């Protein structure tokens, strides 16, 4: 016994406080190693891309096989896709979130719905592309179009909108529902007039984060709505469209002799888009948190 204790003592090479110091510094180093590339990428893109940004770049059609001029069609295309995705995924996602938070009981069907949502969230983006091609482009005959791409992106965005809506509704205290019902409101009136307004900041945050993901995706629109080049802006939802992420893919891999500045400029516009939405979402979130009285 005694000798074992001695061995135990001898084998402890470093003092445990020193071990803690070493461990903490190790973790700090790892964190630095994770964070630096993030900062590096964003700063690098801003530095390399900002010289390309001008009013002309943002508002003109591309010229010389996209090697000059602006990226207007890609920007408007991304707006169209975002609007289309919002149109389908917001009402459906909010309704499904309301169902899960307010109506669903804990039974097998509800569990199946939850598993389906988790599964949808994990389906690879390129598989969404295949699905969109099979269902919307070919089966429904919408062709390679804004409509097909928006529908595909909507289904991909749905899990985010549903989960955040449900979470936001659940964070509204139970008493609000009791009061709503006791004042003679029906369940739906209570949800619409009391619960939903209280949960709105959370819901909006979820919608923005979902759309942010949709805006940056390339794979789902590859064969459902994106096109290499358009001489004019799309005129109907059944037209194909250019989009920022796909445009970045095209000009960085498919077009030889592409001026590097235009490439970085386009990337900067997309990054600004995405991080801007991220910023808006976090402002809404922190404001709502500060104002909340319960």
């Amino acid at each position, binding site marked *: 016994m005694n000798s074992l204790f001695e061995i135990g003592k001898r084998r402890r090479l470093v003092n445990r406080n020193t071990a803690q110091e070493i461990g903490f510094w190790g973790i700090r180093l790892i964190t630095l190693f994770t964070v630096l590339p993030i900062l590096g*990428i964003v700063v690098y893109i801003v530095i390399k891309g900002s010289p390309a940004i001008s009013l002309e770049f943002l508002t003109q059609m591309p010229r010389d096989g996209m090697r000059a001029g602006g990226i207007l069609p890609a920007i408007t295309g991304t707006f169209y896709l975002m609007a289309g995705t919002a149109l389908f995924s917001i009402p459906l996602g909010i*309704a*499904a979130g309301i169902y899960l938070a307010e109506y669903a009981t804990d039974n097998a069907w509800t569990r199946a719905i939850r598993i389906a949502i988790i599964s949808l969230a994990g*389906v*690879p983006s390129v598989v969404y592309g*295949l699905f969109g091609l099979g269902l919307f482009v070919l089966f429904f005959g919408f062709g390679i179009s804004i409509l097909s791409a928006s529908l595909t992106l909507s289904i991909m965005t749905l899990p985010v909108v549903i989960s955040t809506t449900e979470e936001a509704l659940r964070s509204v205290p139970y008493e609000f529902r009791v009061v709503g019902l006791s004042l003679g409101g029906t369940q739906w009136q209570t949800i619409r007039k009391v619960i939903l307004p209280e949960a709105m900041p959370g819901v909006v945050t979820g919608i923005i984060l979902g759309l942010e993901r949709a805006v940056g995706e390339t794979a789902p629109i590859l064969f459902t709505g994106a096109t290499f080049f358009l001489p004019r802006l799309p005129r109907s939802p059944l037209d194909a469209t250019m989009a920022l992420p796909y445009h970045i*893919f095209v000009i960085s891999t498919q077009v030889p002799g592409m001026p590097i500045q235009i490439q970085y400029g386009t990337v900067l516009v997309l990054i600004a888009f995405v991080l801007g939405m991220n910023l808006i979402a976090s402002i809404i979130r922190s404001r709502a948190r500060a104002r909340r009285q319960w």
Partner: protein
Amino acid sequence: MEKRSERIVTSTIRIAGSSSILFLMLIFIFLLREGLPTIGEVPLERLAGERWYPIEDLYGILPLISGSLIVTVFSILIALPLGVGTAIYIGEIAPQSVKEVLKPMVEILAGIPSVVLGFIGILVLSPFLRRAFDLATGLTALSGAILLALISIPTIASITEDALYAVPSSYRYAAYALGATQWQTIWGVAIPAARRGILTAVMLGIGRSLGETMAVMMVTGNAPTIFSGLGSFTAPVRTMTATIASEMGEVATGSIHYHVLFFIGILLFIFSLIINITSSTSTERPREEKAQVVS
């Protein structure tokens, strides 16, 4: 009147609530519809072949699976220590002010579109790796794995942080009361208690890596090769996702090639289902475990 509109709204919401199941089934049905004809068109032993060369009717998908596995495994080896380490720092060590800067930073990484990471991969990472390792090309499995690590780090970090947060503080107080240092408490108590959550984090990270398309397609060089030892890490590979994304645009609808690409999509879909369903059920279990600890 009031009652009728209430009923309409309620049933609409019920239908919408179940829409996820409908969509998941639709995805599966349409993948099967376009992908299953493969079985009749390409004999199974040729489908399991070692050469992917559609122009000569060679549809061996082994090199594609191998390519996906190489980049995924390697990316997780990078992302696991970085993601878990960052989560430990944010959740256990960092002062509040640092935490409030770090959390949004990780969120920013999660928001950077994969095509942007692929772009940086082509212009910055690959040339750097080519010089550093003196390679013939910088477009290799290694570049892909590094980008995939960046993509899966936010997933791993945020789920690990949630898991650490869910460890009851009484566990930590007990460890402190026994004289453990904070570091000993993190390693000996918090992390073991959060292990299921960390496992879920890793599984979902694997899911992200396996399903990621654009970044991988842009930097891995797209040569369908089979794993052949350590040299494969610094050689070009081609993943399942990249194959679908780069070839679907060029095939004729209804051709054998088209069906095989959908068949690969079925495989990806099934992989992702397995990963997500197993990891979602494994997060529900700790509740029983905690009950056991208490009793």
